[in-house]
């Protein structure tokens, strides 16, 4: 997961960056990996007492179009944002919303119980609950001394 922390005072700059990204996306770039750190969808991660909480903004995705899989500590989110049915591009007067297929892979934090992952999707916000595994208690190892 690319860690990119923004301070609040950088908010305006970040928004400007977003605008630039939108611009760049409309231009065919010879190096598609140029802005690798900006991945879709944006994700926030929170730690709670019993679980980690992963939150992603995914407006316009219906639960049926969203594919979540987990394997070997990697969580994969996949989906597609479609434009309105049967509307040709030349009927658009303004086009700012992202469209198309997207995929994102995230490395799960350690000590997560993959079997008990759950997700809820409300009003375009996806919340994935990653329950923590119970902390392993230190186990005493009996030491057997040989007769000398």
């Amino acid at each position, binding site marked *: 997961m690319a860690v990119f922390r923004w301070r609040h005072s950088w*908010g305006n700059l970040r*928004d400007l960056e977003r605008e630039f990204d939108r611009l760049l996306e409309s231009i065919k770039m010879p190096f598609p990996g140029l802005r690798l750190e900006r991945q879709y969808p944006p994700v926030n991660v929170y730690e709670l007492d019993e679980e980690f909480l992963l939150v992603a903004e995914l*407006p316009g995705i219906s639960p049926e179009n969203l594919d979540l899989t987990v394997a070997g500590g990697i969580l994969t989110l996949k989906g597609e944002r479609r434009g309105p049915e049967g509307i040709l591009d030349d*009927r658009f*007067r*303004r086009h700012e919303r992202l469209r198309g297929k997207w995929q994102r892979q995230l490395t799960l934090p350690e000590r997560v119980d993959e079997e008990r992952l759950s997700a809820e999707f409300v009003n375009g*916000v996806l919340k994935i609950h990653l329950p923590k595994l119970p902390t392993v208690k230190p186990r005493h190892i009996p030491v057997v001394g040989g007769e000398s």
Partner: protein
Amino acid sequence: MSEPEATPVPPAPVPPTGMTTQPVPAQSQSTAPVPERTVFMPPIDIYDSDEGLVLLADLPGVTIESLEIQVQDNRLTLFGRVNPALPTEARLLHQEFEWGDFLRSFILSDEVDHDRITAKLNHGVLEVVLPRATKTAPRRIQVNKE
């Protein structure tokens, strides 16, 4: 080329960069200090359909109850409040987006029938239909003798 019927305008208190921090308008002007909230300009699409113009806006986290749509003096304003609904104990480990409310306004032309504007919210996307005003047929005015 005809004039677009809905022209997005930067809302008055918001600088053109599209994002600012300002106190929440209306309602919450009670005695309690108003917390500063971030306001974003949501991305939109506008396209022509058979019934008129359709406006789509990405408003993740906005509910029907927290969304206000207003038409006043040819200006259509969307304001969506976002409640992240996170448990109080939640501690941020990694951040790629900020929580905030959504605000954007548009200038409507006379071609839009203001009384028949409809809106629906679906999975965080607002769809506003702006029907074309039916052109009134020319009416002959009878001139009478005094």
